[in-house]
């Protein structure tokens, strides 16, 4: 009914956090450069970039699911936007129940898959560092 609103809310929050974190990382890198620190070798991916992966997954899913809801007539392009909102208290409570169950599970699954991706990427980066050190030696 409106389950995509839960991952949609998460997508907004994650995008905001990723933008803030990217700004912080850029400022930090600029400061480190000013102190004469070596430039990063570019092998490691910043956490803000990893957060943008999650934002990409969430936004992609939310856009396509919103289209599916439009297809099924559960969402409309005019006020009150959610068909259930115009159908009375029973439909609204059913919609909220679906958001609390299906919507929350969607957000959890996408975040969990992203967590696995981040863990794998850290493992790959860790493996890459000794390889470059060996090559340099």
């Amino acid at each position, binding site marked *: 009914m409106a*389950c*995509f609103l839960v*991952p949609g809310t998460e997508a907004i929050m994650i995008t905001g956090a990723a933008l803030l974190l990217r700004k912080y990382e850029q400022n930090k890198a600029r400061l480190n450069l000013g102190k004469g620190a070596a430039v990063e070798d570019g092998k490691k991916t910043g956490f803000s970039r990893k957060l943008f*992966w999650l934002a*990409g*997954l*969430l*936004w*992609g*899913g*939310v*856009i*396509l*699911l919103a*289209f*599916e809801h439009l*297809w099924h007539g559960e969402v409309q392009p005019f006020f009150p936007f959610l068909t259930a909102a115009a159908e009375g208290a029973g439909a609204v409570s059913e919609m909220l129940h679906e958001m609390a*169950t*299906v919507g929350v*599970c*969607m957000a959890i*699954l*996408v975040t969990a*898959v992203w967590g696995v991706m981040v863990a794998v990427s850290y493992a790959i980066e860790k493996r890459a560092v000794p390889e470059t050190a060996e090559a340099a030696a």
Partner: protein
Amino acid sequence: MTLLITVFAAVAATAVWYQKNDKGLMLGVLCWMFWGASLMWLVDAVFEYIELRAAYFTPEIGDMVNDAFLGLAVVALALVIWVVVLLIRDPKGVVRARLKRQ
């Protein structure tokens, strides 16, 4: 059916992304969209299975056709979004070069 079509699209997009390894094509946008939607529809499918049990795997022909049609429409929408993002971001500068020439 929608889930199946989206999963196939996600796998195909990821395979092309890996094979091309070309940031200029922005195939990542397609991969994120298809995988995100696939995961969300998987949850939807699990909840539906819990409700319908074995009947979930024997849908009516009409429902199946509608779902397949929806799946194809979803793939088309994702491709249109990808092309629009590609042309606006213009990572290879093709659109800018064309506009300058004119």
